[in-house]
């Protein structure tokens, strides 16, 4: 259990860092942020997308396996639901702190505008969160399979709707060609499935007890992860190559910012090398793809690398001025077309991630997340 001990230590340190970040956010409001009036969304919005997509991906995968009886994945429904719940919480916590008036979030329910994709998102998150709680309750109490199937049939389209819906949140922005991509809802769904599978692979390889069907589970996740990683790479290539070939200046500028801008390394090293290429090599390799630690490592790499996927959608879309002369029209704090998160922003993200990790580990220890019929290997 060395991985788990290491995780506990990392979580403890990260929670202290997170507490400092939260203190900065509470005492300074948004003044401490690196995002501004042009790049209005930054690390927190990106991490919100990242975590809700993990929630959607894990849930869709596990629920499909459960509904169609795909073994051994189908036996891990309650674990999947719990990961989705914790991940959804981490995502929503990010966006809560990102709001100018967080305590007014209830207004989205009290006086919603249904012309906004954001309203649609908030409502589906709320329904999805409630559904997860009900599902866990049923799992831990009666375990009524018929009821769980009904709940799964309701939850599946919800999860597809909000993971694709996040893509629509950006896709509907006609004035920003980098975001105005019709296939965004679909590619976001693929990203969700890839990151969700990656988290499951990591958890199964390093954190689950050594149960009888663990090896079969890992092999299954290994194949699925490879498919999703390749699909993600295809969508990325299609998007960027068409953007560059189409030569729409705003779009080209945004793509060039990603691949050759000041943060090129976030794309080439974190997103492509760590998030796509290295995991694909491991998962394609005939021997490595069968080894539990190697598949777990591939999962960790995809999960880490995909943080850059989100940042590379949110930030470049805002970093190219709507009108070029805006760059020099007005100067002051928070008026830059360059963005790099501040220490306080990083700290909050580290803290929320650690909190999610803490909740997961405590849940794994205290809740009956493992199917009681499974025996130790």
């Amino acid at each position, binding site marked *: 259990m060395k991985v788990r001990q290491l995780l506990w230590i990392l979580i403890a340190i990260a929670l202290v860092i997170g507490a400092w970040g939260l203190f900065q956010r509470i005492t*300074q409001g948004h003044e401490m942020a690196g995002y501004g009036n042009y790049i209005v969304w930054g690390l927190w919005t990106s991490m919100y997308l990242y975590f809700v997509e993990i929630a959607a991906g894990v849930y869709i995968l596990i629920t499909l396996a459960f509904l169609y009886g795909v073994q051994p994945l189908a036996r891990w429904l309650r674990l999947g639901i719990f990961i989705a719940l914790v991940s959804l919480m981490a995502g929503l916590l990010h966006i809560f702190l990102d709001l100018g008036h967080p305590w007014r979030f209830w207004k989205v329910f009290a006086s919603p505008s249904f012309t906004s994709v954001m309203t649609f998102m908030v409502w589906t998150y709320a329904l999805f969160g409630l559904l997860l709680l009900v599902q866990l309750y049923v799992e831990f109490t009666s375990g009524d399979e018929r009821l769980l199937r009904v709940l799964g049939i309701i939850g599946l389209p919800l999860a597809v709707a909000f993971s694709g819906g996040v893509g629509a949140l950006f896709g509907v922005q006609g004035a920003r060609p980098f975001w105005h991509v019709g296939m965004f809802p679909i590619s976001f769904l693929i990203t969700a499935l890839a990151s969700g599978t990656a988290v499951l692979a990591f958890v199964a390889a390093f954190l689950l007890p050594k149960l009888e069907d663990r090896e079969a589970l890992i092999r299954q996740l290994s194949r699925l992860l490879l498919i999703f990683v390749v699909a993600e790479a295809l969508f990325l290539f299609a998007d960027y190559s068409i953007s560059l070939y189409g030569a729409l200046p705003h779009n080209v500028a945004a793509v060039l910012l990603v691949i050759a801008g000041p943060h090129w390394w976030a794309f080439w090293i974190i997103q492509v090398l760590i998030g796509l290429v290295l995991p694909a090599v491991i998962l394609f390799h005939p021997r490595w793809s069968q080894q539990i630690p190697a598949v777990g490592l591939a999962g960790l790499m995809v999960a880490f690398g995909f943080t850059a996927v989100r940042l590379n959608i949110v930030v470049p879309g805002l970093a190219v001025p709507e009108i070029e002369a805006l760059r020099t029209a*007005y100067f002051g704090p928070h008026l830059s077309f360059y963005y790099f998160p501040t220490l306080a922003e990083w700290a909050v993200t580290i803290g929320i991630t650690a909190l999610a990790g803490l909740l997961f580990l405590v849940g794994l220890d205290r809740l009956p997340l493992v199917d009681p019929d499974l025996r130790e290997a």
Partner: protein
Amino acid sequence: MPVVMEMENTILRMGEDIQRALRKAVDERHWAMVIDLTKCVGCESCTIACKAENKTPPSVSYNIVLKEETGTYPNVREVFVPRPCMQCQEPPCVPVCPVRATFQRPDGIVAIDYDQCIGCRYCVTACPYGARSFDFGESYGEGTPQTPAVYETVATYEYGKVQVRRQDASPIGNVRKCHFCLHRLNEGLLPACISDCIGRSRYFGDLSDPDSLVSELLAERYSFRLREELGTKPSVFYLS
């Protein structure tokens, strides 16, 4: 007619146009701004007038002047394009707001309800003109013994509400934008940027009134609007 007299007449004429518009029902008005780029000298008096009127903080300016240099020395020309909010007739910022905090008034002005805005900034990303700003809570007095600066403690009258900007309260944490000085309009006064323009390059009035100065100018002169291809139908027109 002497230039000064002509300028005074323009101000009086626009004032009369506003009075006439105010006598009509709100939904029969269409407030519009016309900016003559051949007269703009890029002095930013409009920016300063707006700052003074609305007491906007450091990162927020409802009006800015876009500047672009064209040509090669010695044949160089600098073009100035003042940019208030375009008050689009098809505003992309309105439908994206999840709580109806930003809305289009019957007279065409896109307004924000500060008490309703949750500060999600989705509208900022939707605006194709960079005309929306988030109030981060900064003060011009920061780094000095007087924070906030004295003039920042004076009340504003935005949207007809007497409001002093205080930490942890709206409009801090809200998105803010130009509203054509709606509070002045309702009192029969011109927007601050119109009254203070030193070159009289800015005109204001009711576009639904064929006798208004703005209607006349748009009928007589060639005009264009920013990023018209997006279909936002701005209520700010430029003469060139």
